[in-house]
């Protein structure tokens, strides 16, 4: 897929909670098609301490308005600087990057997002729903504050929630949700993105249930376009770049 570099204009910076915000960006030309799971490399030009671009999953796309959005969690200087952008500010993106999630064999699929790892699941839910699949969305977080915009997924599938402290949805990790004790075998694919331990847990469950599982990795990146070889992940077929051959990987291929 052809990659682009464009100066987007911030149309809205939506502060969802203290730590999460969604930034809406208008493309100066017609947006190319963006697949679920793809990401953008963002140039942070308002932070004195951020040098490299920052990768973010593409959260949502509105082809009519020519706007795409990113869902971001403040974790350091780069994301904090992005949280300060205002309407009319310019943000330079290289996009759309990476591969994408693949289609499940059967109708039902479970989309699991932990914290900000939920970001790529919105486009995926929309996409699957549009193609006639039945996606369920399971959102996990530490507390209810980490369950970000769950209503967004409702039009495309059923939404389930877990929190570590039980402040929203069921208490516990995502893999402890009752879904996994009940009809989990109905899903022909598990998709997951989130913290390392969460993705490992999901992959383990998937392996034991013999359900295919795709996860989206967040390896640190320097270029995002396959030039630096910094983002590699070890697979059964050797080192793969997360930015080009990922970020979505079949967990059975990962070492």
């Amino acid at each position, binding site marked *: 897929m052809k990659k682009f570099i464009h100066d987007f204009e911030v149309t809205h910076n939506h502060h969802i909670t203290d730590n999460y915000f969604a930034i809406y960006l208008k493309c100066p030309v017609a947006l190319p098609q963006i697949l679920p799971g793809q990401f953008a490399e963002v140039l942070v030009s308002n932070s004195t301490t951020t040098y*490299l671009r920052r990768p973010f999953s593409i959260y949502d796309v509105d082809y009519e308005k020519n706007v795409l959005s990113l869902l971001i969690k403040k974790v350091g200087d780069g994301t904090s600087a992005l949280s300060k952008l205002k309407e009319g500010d310019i943000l330079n993106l290289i996009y759309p990057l990476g591969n994408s999630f693949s289609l499940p064999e059967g109708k039902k699929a479970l989309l699991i997002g932990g914290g900000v790892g939920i970001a790529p699941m919105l486009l995926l839910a929309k996409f699957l729903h549009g193609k006639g699949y039945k996606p369920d969305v399971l959102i996990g977080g530490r507390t209810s504050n980490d369950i970000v915009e769950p209503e967004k997924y409702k039009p495309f599938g059923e939404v389930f929630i877990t929190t570590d402290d039980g402040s929203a949805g069921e208490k516990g990790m995502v893999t402890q949700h009752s879904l996994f004790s009940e009809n989990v075998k109905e899903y022909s694919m598990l998709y997951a993105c989130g913290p390392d331990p969460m993705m490992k847990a999901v992959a383990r469950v998937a392996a034991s249930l013999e359900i295919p599982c795709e996860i989206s990795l967040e390896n640190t990146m320097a*270029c995002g376009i396959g030039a630096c070889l910094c983002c590699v992940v070890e697979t059964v077929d050797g080192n793969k770049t997360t930015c080009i051959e990922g970020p979505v990987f079949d967990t059975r291929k990962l070492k």
Partner: protein
Amino acid sequence: METKLPASKDLFLIRESLNSTDQDQNKSEIENPKSKITMLDLSVNVHKLMLKNPVMSASGTFGYGIEFDDFIDVNRLGGILTKACTSKNRDGNRYPRMAETPAGMLNSVGLQNKGVEYFINTIYPKIEHYDTHIIVNVSDSTVEGYMEVAEKLNSLEKVNGIELNISCPNVKEGGMAFGTSCPMAGAVTKAVRGVYSKTMIVKLSPNVTNIAEIAKAVEDEGADSVSVINTLLGMAIDAEKRRPILSTITGGLSGPAIKPIALRMVWQVSKAVKIPVIGLGGISNATDAIEFLLAGATAIQVGTANFIDPQVCIKILDGIEEYCNRHGVKDIKELIGALN
């Protein structure tokens, strides 16, 4: 009241703050820069390689050029330095291989590549169409390994030069060790010279007390040019996890952070040797590039900056043209080493 000041003499050391304004004025004088460009000679010679302009991409930061086809017309470059090519397949180091640092980054990729045979059979056919010089970055852990790669590349029609990487800080054996002692740097240069007949550039390590001496050692053994500099050995620690960020503990520092050091080394080396010096290290815009030419570089390479802006090489090229037009420079070669 005293009036001792002679009217003619510089009275005091003060800010010459008109410079920026002068500059603005000059800019506005150029009514039609495009028309002047045709009169500008940007070509430079690195030994037998005639580069159409001095802007090249640095090894390991530009893939094989193909990765940048979506963003720029790669053919406009003076040359492409490919990623490292070794005698055998190398998996490189384990992840994490990268750490961001102030105005720079550390990497410990560790020469990941599929070996010289794969390069010749699979990659070369995909890039030989480029209308620019393809210079292969040659690395290995042994003198024999370097020789093997160089010898095999000698017959590739579209590869008219190699860059001997005797300065990679990210491999256990060989690599940087070759570049930090005169006898070793001289020995590997001499050995490869014996099997390689086209333009041979040697890429020097900045992790030395006296880089000019190393440059002279490789010049004496037949290097046609030197690239100055490879990365500086650095380290990054994750204070929260209390462990090094890179799987290899140390890695190579690149980016704007190292520019002042690179510039100093280019200046030192270009005064010490007669062969052309290729300058690199932190170049991110046309002004940086001009500074390296003024310091004595015949050509320059752009590395880490490609990650920040995949179009940066072309912007640098355009910026150099603009600078030359603004300063009435007709031939870029006038700028090489032209410090007042």
